[in-house]
């Protein structure tokens, strides 16, 4: 998807930068990167540094940054929404109307990226600085503490202390329960594939009326 958009918008001065939040590192990310055959930068972030710097709590999440280095759209789901929650976890099947809802959301979002790529700050998709500032997540003490537990867990996992790592991942999830990145990375490091297993779907169901992918702030059409 991002390679096609890179080619389409090549003459607009837009660079797509993809960051894999991947504590397993290149081993886990490379098959996907090779399949995408990208000409845009594909970075590998074992410690979820970018997620923590920008306040990304899930994937795919995007931040738009203008030519001066100013954020013009804060972190938001990059072309997806909660329609995926209707999926049957066992079969991965989704009803036609929900598949359509996901396609529509992706189309709307990518059209927004196209508009901004061509018109820059003139695009209604580019938000004012005050709006961006008000929507950037303020660092909170418990989230900062979650970061150091996640970092410690990732370090211990790399050294082969899987059980100690999970103890600190559990602290990170407890301190920052909104972070699906922490939660799912921890499940994945416990056992590959577990990040989409029973525990994951139970946690999604437990959200109830709350969003998994919050709706984006789109211009009025």
């Amino acid at each position: 998807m991002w390679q096609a958009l890179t080619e389409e918008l090549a003459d607009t001065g837009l660079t797509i930068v993809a960051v894999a939040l991947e504590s397993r590192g290149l081993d886990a990310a490379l098959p996907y990167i090779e399949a995408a055959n990208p000409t845009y930068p594909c970075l590998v972030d074992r410690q979820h540094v970018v997620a923590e710097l920008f306040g990304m709590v899930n994937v795919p999440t995007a931040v738009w940054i203008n030519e001066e280095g100013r954020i013009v759209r804060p972190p938001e789901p990059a072309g997806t929404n909660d329609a995926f929650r209707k999926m049957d976890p066992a079969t991965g099947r989704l009803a036609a109307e929900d598949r359509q809802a996901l396609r529509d959301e992706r189309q709307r979002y990518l059209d927004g990226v196209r508009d901004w790529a061509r018109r820059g700050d003139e695009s209604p998709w580019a938000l004012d600085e005050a709006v961006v500032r008000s929507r950037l997540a303020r660092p909170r003490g418990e989230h900062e503490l979650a970061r150091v537990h996640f970092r410690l867990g990732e370090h211990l996992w790399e050294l082969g202390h899987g059980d100690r790592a999970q103890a600190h991942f559990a602290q990170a999830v407890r301190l920052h329960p909104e972070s699906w990145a922490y939660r799912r990375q921890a499940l994945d490091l416990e056992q590959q594939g577990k990040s989409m297993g029973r525990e994951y779907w139970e946690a999604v169901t437990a959200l109830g009326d709350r969003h998994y992918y919050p709706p984006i702030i789109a211009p009025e059409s």
Partner: protein
Amino acid sequence: MVTLLINGHTSVTPAGAPGPGPWVPVSQMAALTGWDLKPEGACLGERCVPIPPGRSDEFEREGWFNMAALAAHLGQPLAEDAETETWCIGEAPADRATALNSAIAPDFRLPDYRGTEYTLSQFRGRKVFLVSWASW
């Protein structure tokens, strides 16, 4: 043997500390932690934090410096794994809030899948669509 994760450093501290926790020899403090002890206090780059008067014993003893005391003093988050004697010290929320107040994207440095290092700031002058993904 204590391991300390701080400011991007992963440091194993030498034996002989005057107490439990992440003590580092003052002579190796800059190399191990990024912080340096100067006459004006503990310094990270341009920023210096005076050691609180009358409490120097908590911070510095017998040529060693206690990074946990500094973290507590600055309100930096700290996590400890007692079993493996590993400590991790982060940034104070107030410091990060200041960085976010401007809406200027914070810079970072990461390798790509071929090992080439990138920074966000190298794309200044272009629009950047920064997007996360994962295999999990």
